[in-house]
């Protein structure tokens, strides 16, 4: 299975080609956010205010990295459980976000938003934080510094290994994969 190369910002056409189970190698800039930052950003969207970054065509990585040692770009930086963002992600997708990276299945409300607004949900290997950190070449806090590990960061990723988990056509690797290997 050959990996698909993807670069941010991504277009609807890029998204439409992706199917659940595809391996993807990601390059470019992505943004980090977890529960606390999502709560703040969705409050801004609800009020009609703009976000700390323009979400159009962008990808959010659900991660709260460990602190960088001197000389390091970032500490360990693997994905966190995405289901906690079920409440927030549909609004972010509606605002133009094209994808999220995390671990574990996302809910029906996210599946619906991915279909309606053309988005994709990707997974990275949970617990492989040291490996993922090696593929991050820049890290800069762009908002909510007071949230510490939960601050919004802009990361530059190089050959970041992810997998399409839920696509814009309703495909879902958690359902399809389990059915395939169940005994």
């Amino acid at each position: 299975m050959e990996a698909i190369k993807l670069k941010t910002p991504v277009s609807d056409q890029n998204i439409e080609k992706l199917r659940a189970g595809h391996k993807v190698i990601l390059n470019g800039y992505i943004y980090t956010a977890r529960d606390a930052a999502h709560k703040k950003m969705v409050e801004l969207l609800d009020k009609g205010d703009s976000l700390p970054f323009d979400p159009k065509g962008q990808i959010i990585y659900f991660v709260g990295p460990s602190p960088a040692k001197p000389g390091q770009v970032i500490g360990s930086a693997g994905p966190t459980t995405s289901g906690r963002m079920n409440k927030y992600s549909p609004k972010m997708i509606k605002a133009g976000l094209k994808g999220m990276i995390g671990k574990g299945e996302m809910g029906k409300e996210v599946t619906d938003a991915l279909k309606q607004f053309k988005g994709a949900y990707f997974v990275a290997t949970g617990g492989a934080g040291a490996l993922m950190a090696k593929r991050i070449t820049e890290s800069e806090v762009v908002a909510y510094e007071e949230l510490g590990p939960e601050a919004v960061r802009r990361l530059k990723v190089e050959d970041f290994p992810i997998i399409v988990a839920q696509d814009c056509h309703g495909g879902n690797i958690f359902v399809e994969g389990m059915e395939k290997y169940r005994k």
Partner: protein
Amino acid sequence: MRNISSDEITSAVKKLCMDANYFLGDDVVEAVRKSLDKEESPLGKEILNQILENAEIARKERMPLCQDTGLTAIFVEMGSEVQIEGLTLESAIQEGIGQGYEEGFLRKSMVEDPLRRKNTGDNTPGVISIKSTEGDRIKITILPKGGGSENMSAIKMLKPSDGEDGVKNFIVDTVKIAGGNPCPPVIVGVGIGGSFDKCAYLAKKSLLREVGSVHPDPYYADMEKELLERINNTGIGPQGLGGRITALAVHIETHPCHIASLPVAVNTQCHSARHKEIII
């Protein structure tokens, strides 16, 4: 009596926090390596290989295996002939956690109130359990427990008539509901018996057992084997993307219980099954 200074406890805990987060145990590495032969899914194999590569990078660079460096669970076995000089045992340990997480560049993941959620800034307090033993030694084990897998844990007060089948079904169902969330392949820690709180403690304590070891009681050894097979037949697979390897091991700990009760707890542990111990 043997006197041990609280400084010695603090510096031992500090080092354990760092070592546990950087160095994955050989038993876990070996179990992941062996599971590669059994995994049929290409994506599953790739994930298992990434887990091994990650452990290698973490070890070489002294980097946390996972960014979630956990709530610090601490198990102490305190010899009755040991006397701690200086701080109390509890304070000495908490001090060690604070120092270890700061100096080891580990993530601080504790909030001081469950609803108002302000970070304590140094990953304290850890959750400590102390057991008294004979002799003049003190054994300290630390288990940094990630939130993602902890959240997929469950407890149930079954009826004695639910019996063995009730217990087994609850364990398998808990793993199924968790799906890909707790970072499978997992280690399924199970506590059976005791009280509501005791069985949860047993489930956590069972995670300290060496992966690949066989339960000393043949009855429970068989049950562990059967449960592992049922769990791996769910098809959940590495990270929940489908595959043969959902769990690396099932560990059961038991305790006597009340005639009216059958408590069962499942403490789910991700593949980053970190724990380190020292005997002073």
